[in-house]
């Protein structure tokens, strides 16, 4: 069973990547934080008795399920919003403010005013990568981030995603090629 110290160390290690993973999926700071919070609580409450070595795969599965739940809830909420805005015609302002928020988050100048030249290419690469990750099909993004960023092996990724190992390999390969092509198109060769 994972001790509180082990759980703390695990969450401290994974929390930032989890936030970014959620952000790539939902493109919103508050929603991404809510998703990570739900995933952390579910892990601690339901799987706090599992050995520490099982935590990474379990947490990734919980995180992806929480993201899917968010999509489902959003779909229902959007349906009602569309219905009400069709009746009242006041939906546009909210949509604009959300878009502004996303643009602000994506704007690298919003947090850092000046970057040294040496880091410029790195920043550009990161910007392209983040934009392209958002555009990737959800399953490809899931597989890529779990397999390479979280360092799960193919079997663990397949189990967390509920698919075969062959599918994981295909998703990962396609995601990698799509990201590499996007970087190459912008003049960045890895």
């Amino acid at each position: 069973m994972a001790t509180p110290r082990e759980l703390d160390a695990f969450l401290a290690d994974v929390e930032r990547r989890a936030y970014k993973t959620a952000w790539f999926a939902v493109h919103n700071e508050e929603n991404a934080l809510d998703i990570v919070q739900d995933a952390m609580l579910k892990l601690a409450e339901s799987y706090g008795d599992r050995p520490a070595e099982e935590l990474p795969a379990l947490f990734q599965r919980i995180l992806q399920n929480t993201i899917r739940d968010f999509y489902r809830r959003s779909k229902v909420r959007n349906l009602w919003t569309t219905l009400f805005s069709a009746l009242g015609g006041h939906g546009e302002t909210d949509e604009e403010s959300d878009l502004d928020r996303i643009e602000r988050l994506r704007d690298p100048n919003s947090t850092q005013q000046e970057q040294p030249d040496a880091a410029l290419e790195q920043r550009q690469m990161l910007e392209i990568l983040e934009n392209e990750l958002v555009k990737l099909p959800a399953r490809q993004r899931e597989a890529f981030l779990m397999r390479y960023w979280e360092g799960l092996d193919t079997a663990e990724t397949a189990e967390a995603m509920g698919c075969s190992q062959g599918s994981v390999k295909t998703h990962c390969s396609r995601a990698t090629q799509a990201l590499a092509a996007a970087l190459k198109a912008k003049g960045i060769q890895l």
Partner: protein
Amino acid sequence: MTHEPHQPTPAQDDLLAKAMVSALDQSTGALPSRITARLAQMREQALAHQKQWQSALQLAGQGTHRAIGSLFGDSFGSATDWRRWAASLGVLLLTAVFMFWQAQDQVEQLASEDSALLSEALPPNALLDKGFQSWVSSGTPDVQ
């Protein structure tokens, strides 16, 4: 002769992907402090939930310990190892005695049933006779 498009090998894919995630790793280090502070807060909340769960387990464990302690005296809670062994041995002995008593009781019941059967006027072999059984059944009004 046709040339198939160049397909990257899995090893090449891995190298590309590793270069990409190392860039992504740097992005996590540059998260705004309001986000890192929220994440730390969430982690503490999650840990508090695990602690509650663990303390609930501990309480349950302590409850069982006290229940046993009340059976064997208050000193059980602070008993040394040999006392615990003695208490466990006592429980085992009591269980064995109870099971023996149950078995004996069953044997005695069977013996008394046998003696009741043998002491009746009806010979015991009659109970094994099919004709006698069908006569008893047909003589019972409830039986169709």
